[in-house]
């Protein structure tokens, strides 16, 4: 059974392996350079007692940062090019009839056929995650560019690439079984994966844990270092909240100032604060765990659906 899976899919394994080696080479070479730059910067700024703005130093790696963002799409590629054709090709070519009349039961054939691509997704996704997480270690430490909770940064490191890859492959396999055609399976994998990722990122992720809240000075509404600020409301000296704080709400003394850095200072002096809700930086791994669990449960449901369809269906 393992021989069958390997002979059928070895070329895909070679191509993906080669692509991963290229990506690893690029990230290792640039990552070593970045960590050198980072090290020099941290040593230098510590000596000068000013580590305020790292952008002139680390901003140069914008191209690689964009590359890293592009790794968000890799799980989708696994889903479209490994998952979707896996069973759809068998149905298109009629070879499922050949496989199902060999001396192994359909359940055994199916479990081996889906186990290997899922395992491959786990391994490749893990390798990708390890590379990107390592590359971003300096950026994570500085909180620049972007904090770890940001969309596009949260999604490419930690354990997320593993969970997304497994989900994408399971989705592709299920769509291939449902449609029995490669192209519709690839198209729906693309649409469903993108849709589910968007919905969960936008609407579920902020609510995994009840956010913390804090009253911070005007102008300090970025929240504690590395945290994810979900909302901010200006609070007046008497405790009144301004849903939409406008120029008209400012005290006369501050309104007369020219726009600039003095204005927040004036507001602070008059007793204005900002009430923020946020997810503290320390919750990063909890959030990773929760979102990974969601996608792994979805993947398990899709594989269960595949088994039901394949075992119940006529050839």
């Amino acid at each position: 059974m393992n021989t069958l899976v390997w002979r059928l899919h070895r070329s895909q394994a070679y191509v993906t392996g080669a692509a991963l080696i290229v990506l690893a080479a690029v990230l290792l070479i640039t990552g070593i350079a970045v960590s050198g730059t980072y090290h020099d910067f941290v040593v230098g700024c510590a000596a000068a007692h000013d580590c305020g703005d790292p952008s002139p130093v680390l901003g140069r790696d914008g191209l690689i940062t964009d590359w890293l963002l592009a790794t968000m799409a890799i799980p989708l590629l696994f889903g479209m090019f490994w998952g979707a054709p896996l069973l759809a090709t068998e149905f298109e070519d009629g070879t499922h009839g050949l496989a199902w009349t060999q001396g192994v039961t359909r359940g055994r054939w199916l479990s081996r056929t889906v186990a290997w691509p899922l395992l491959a997704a786990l391994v490749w996704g893990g390798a990708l995650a390890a590379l990107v997480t390592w590359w971003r270690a300096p950026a994570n430490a500085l909180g620049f560019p972007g904090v770890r909770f940001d969309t596009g940064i949260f999604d490419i490191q930690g354990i997320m690439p593993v969970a997304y890859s497994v989900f994408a492959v399971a989705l592709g396999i299920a769509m291939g079984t449902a449609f029995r055609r490669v192209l519709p399976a690839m198209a729906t994998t693309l649409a469903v994966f993108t849709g589910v990722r968007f919905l969960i990122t936008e609407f579920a992720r902020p609510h995994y844990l009840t956010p913390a809240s804090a009253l911070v000075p005007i102008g300090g509404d970025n929240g504690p270092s590395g945290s994810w600020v979900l909302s901010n409301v200006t609070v007046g000296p008497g405790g009144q909240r301004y849903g939409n704080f406008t120029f008209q709400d400012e005290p006369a003394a501050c309104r007369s100032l020219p726009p600039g850095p003095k204005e927040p200072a004036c507001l602070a002096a008059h007793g204005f604060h900002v009430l923020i809700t946020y997810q503290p930086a320390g919750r990063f791994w909890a959030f990773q765990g929760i979102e990974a669990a969601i996608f792994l449960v979805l993947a398990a449901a899709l594989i269960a659906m595949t088994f039901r369809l394949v075992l119940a269906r006529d050839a």
Partner: protein
Amino acid sequence: MNAQDAPAIRTAGLGKRYGSLWALQDCSVSVPRGRVSALVGPNGAGKTTLLKILAGLSAPSAGEAAVLGRAPGQSAEFLNSVGYLAQHVPLYKRLSAGDHLDIGARLNRHWDAGAARARLAALKIPLGRPVATLSGGQRAQVGLSLALAKRPRLLLLDEPVAALDPLARREFLTSLTGAVADGDLSVILSSHLLHDLERVCDHLILLAASRTQLVGDIDDVLATHRILVGPRRRIGEVEPGLTVIKSTQTARQTRLLARLTGPVLDPSWEVTEVGLEDIVVAYMGLEASPADGQLTEIGAAQ
């Protein structure tokens, strides 16, 4: 009945429905072991459906089937005892014949690797090239070799020669005949090329209009069917020892193709033997006018 002396196949009231359409209906057949059975019928008669049910690839909607005394299903015993070659001979396009043999060896209990390689070598079929680059005849031979290498007790072949040229067809059927002669193997072979089947088969299953119309050893079928030609007479006056399958009348003559259940007593009939092809075609015609279509009028009626 234990599995050792159970018939190769036995079905009772077997039916398969797709939506509201019956692809196979009320199919009751029993085929003894060791026969090479021709499954014939017009397109859409349910041949493929019947073979898929027997191969365990499709679940019946009605009735039951037993293959070698076992219900087709997902047991290793069943799967290892039945060989199946689907229509158009699906193979993994990018894999070579050798790959297919290696995979088959790992998936089947009673795999006969030596015989399969020897067959393909004798046919000069390259083992190393992707099967997509082989000819249709070579692919069919690879498919047959895979099915035979399982050493099945029952081999189901769905239109294996339909796409082949006459030479490849003959080679395929010769290979099949050789394999059958070698061991305890029953074969059901579907085709609409009756001429080919007659050479290799000794048993007949005739499906038409989604139902079984005729089942039996070909020798018996030939022995019990006759053409009767005699003076024109009224339809009702056909004698009791006959079941009329088809009749044609001209102004002076009545011609019948009939199944005999006893001797023909009326001396005014001129009785002649009839070939298998004419018998099969006559039965297939039954569906065209099912009510009382056993009579086709030709010429002026009185």
